[in-house]
């Protein structure tokens, strides 16, 4: 066990993957000497050389498109997108190429490309630096999408994502980069465990689902709710495509109540899919409609307003109150 920050865990995971498989190459803007703007690739170019840690021209479509070509040639590229808001120029290559090549080639071409995206807000940045684009990718067939929430998962899941033969969008909750945690670098994860959710705290009254940056917030909310006598089960989703509905459904059948939280806009966000699917599977067990506590349907706001946009402990508890039919902010129509 080592005590590592989230970013150190990623760096260590990258190093382990690169040592294990010489076909693993890293690509991105400023990932070489600089070590990336978040220093996730710190020291790796020095140790593995310029052809394993590849500084690229400033063009995201180019980065993803050439990563596809490298994968075609047998490489296993790990792409860093500098910030979430800069992934969109690569959207076509991700959605029409990366996601579809295996299907197009009838299984002949595998594209084991991992796209690392520091995502989400809370760091006081200007426009385009705090986006939560997960719904776009999760809706895209052919991609897998995961988001670790703690250093151990950062370390383990990143290596699993790199080892996966399918393209994986790997979302890193950037505001948790400095979080420290115990990491077992010897841990050999179970096969398939990359795509399983984890019960981060068990409880019996209500299921609270979060992923990435909000898992910590959700756990804090659960602790706060305890004082009010509400026993919350917190689920760290971990995988956004596929979603581990078996774990979610089991929890909701036990608790009968569901709150989902994410930073991304509510309308058409992942929360909608979770709510809709779980409702379909667990309708007769539900005591209340699933409640979503999310970012608003607005462009990510300026730094001085982001605390209002991001779900926090109070807003999650407000959602919990609604789900428990103990008050909470009334919905317009009824209220």
């Amino acid at each position, binding site marked *: 066990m080592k005590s590592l920050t989230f970013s150190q865990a990623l760096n260590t995971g990258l190093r382990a993957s690169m040592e294990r498989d010489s076909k693993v190459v890293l690509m991105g803007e400023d990932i070489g000497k600089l070590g990336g703007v978040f220093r996730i690739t710190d020291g790796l170019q020095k140790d593995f050389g310029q052809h394993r840690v590849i500084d690229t021209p400033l063009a995201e479509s180019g980065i993803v498109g050439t990563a596809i070509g490298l994968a075609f040639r047998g490489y296993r590229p790990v792409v860093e997108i500098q910030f979430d808001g800069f992934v969109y120029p690569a959207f076509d290559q991700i959605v029409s190429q990366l996601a579809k090549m*295996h299907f197009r080639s009838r299984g002949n071409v595998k594209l084991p490309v991992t796209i690392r995206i520091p995502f989400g807000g809370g760091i006081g940045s200007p426009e385009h630096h705090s986006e939560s684009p997960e719904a776009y990718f999760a809706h895209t067939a052919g991609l897998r999408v995961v988001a670790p929430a703690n250093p151990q998962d950062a370390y383990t899941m990143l290596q699993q994502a790199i080892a996966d033969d*399918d393209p994986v969008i790997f979302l890193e909750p950037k505001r948790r980069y400095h979080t420290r945690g115990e990491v077992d670098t010897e841990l050999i994860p179970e096969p398939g465990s990359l795509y399983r959710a984890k019960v981060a705290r068990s409880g019996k009254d209500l299921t609270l689902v979060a992923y990435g940056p909000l898992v910590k917030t959700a756990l804090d909310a659960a602790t706060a709710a305890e004082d009010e006598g509400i026993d919350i089960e917190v689920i760290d989703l971990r995988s956004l495509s596929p979603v581990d509905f078996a774990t979610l459904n089991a929890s909701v059948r036990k608790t009968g109540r569901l709150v989902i939280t994410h930073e991304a806009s509510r309308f058409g966000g992942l929360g909608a899919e979770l709510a809709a699917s779980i409702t379909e599977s667990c309708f007769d067990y539900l005591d209340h409609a699933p409640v979503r506590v999310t970012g608003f349907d607005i462009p990510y706001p300026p730094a001085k307003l982001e605390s209002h946009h991001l779900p926090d402990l109070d807003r999650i508890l407000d959602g919990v109150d609604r789900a428990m039919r103990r008050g909470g902010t009334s919905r317009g129509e009824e209220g």
Partner: protein
Amino acid sequence: MSPTFDSTADPGPDALLQIVGPDGTRHLCPELDPWVTDIDADALENLYIDMVSIRRLDAEGTALQRQGELGLWAPLLGQEAAQIGSGRALENDDFIFPSYREHGVAYCRGVAPSDLLRMWRGAAPSGWNPYEVNMANQQIVIGAQTLHAAGYAMGLRFDGSSAAAITYFGDGATSQGDVSEAMVFAASYQSPLVFFCQNNQWAISEPVARQTTGHIADRAAGFGLATWRVDGNDVIAVMAATRAALAHVRTGSGPAFIEALTYRMGAHTTADDPTRYRDALELEEWAAKDPLDRVAAHLDGLGSDMNALKVRADDAAEKLAAGLREAITSMPDPEVSDLFAHVYSHDHAGLDEQRDFHQRYLRSFESTAEATA
């Protein structure tokens, strides 16, 4: 005072590399001649047979579409020299990233007829196994494949391989950001990649002047690529330029760009009606520059037995066409289960559940059918 946009044609063939002119005359071309010293009458006869064959292949594609056997077809008529000249210049381990119109290049690679037609029939998203023929599947998104080629070529360089990559695309494609970015990446890593632009003068209904005010090859030069601007209807010149470009990139001197001036004699696809947007005169002009006729005229001049050659060529072409027809009649329709196959390379809980659900759904009809039987 509304401005008008002249769609004047490409500035013309200045500095255009040519070896055999439209009338079959062989010209001296110091820049290209050294690359095709081995192309004697025999070799040229084979290139001729290739061109006749893919013209026939193309006609069969159009016919099969008319007969309802294919959903769509993108004719290569007029572009035979560009495709055979370049396709036959490649080594087996050179890897090709094509667009959707390179049936002639696929033919050079020995792609099976059924694999060639699969996509056009609507039976599969695409056809062959790229690794069996060292050629990626057809690419429909304009320009996207050029970046894959740039990445593959980076890999070749990392591997210290002597192979090269080549990517095909059209004049219209040069406007896409991806194509510019592919040049940036290829130049930045000095990768062994040949960009092969078939400037067939049109992108559906848009003349090349909508995409560029100058020569396409000049644009590539601005990105630092070695460039060749070649008569794309001259199979020897195309072969020479492609060999020269391949040799250039193999030495590690950075990527190369070939602009092959040719003409799309047919429709954009079988769904297109070019009479709506282009002049019959233009077609006539280009018909006079036909890539097959000039080789025939040249071989005739060299004393080849043209009747015998035409018989050989027609035989080869007919055999190819018969193979295509046979491939179509014997091609099984895809299975419903193909819907769910290969979306991922291994299990995906969400999709697996949908597949099972759909199987149960389909079985419910069987049981209904049984029940009412």
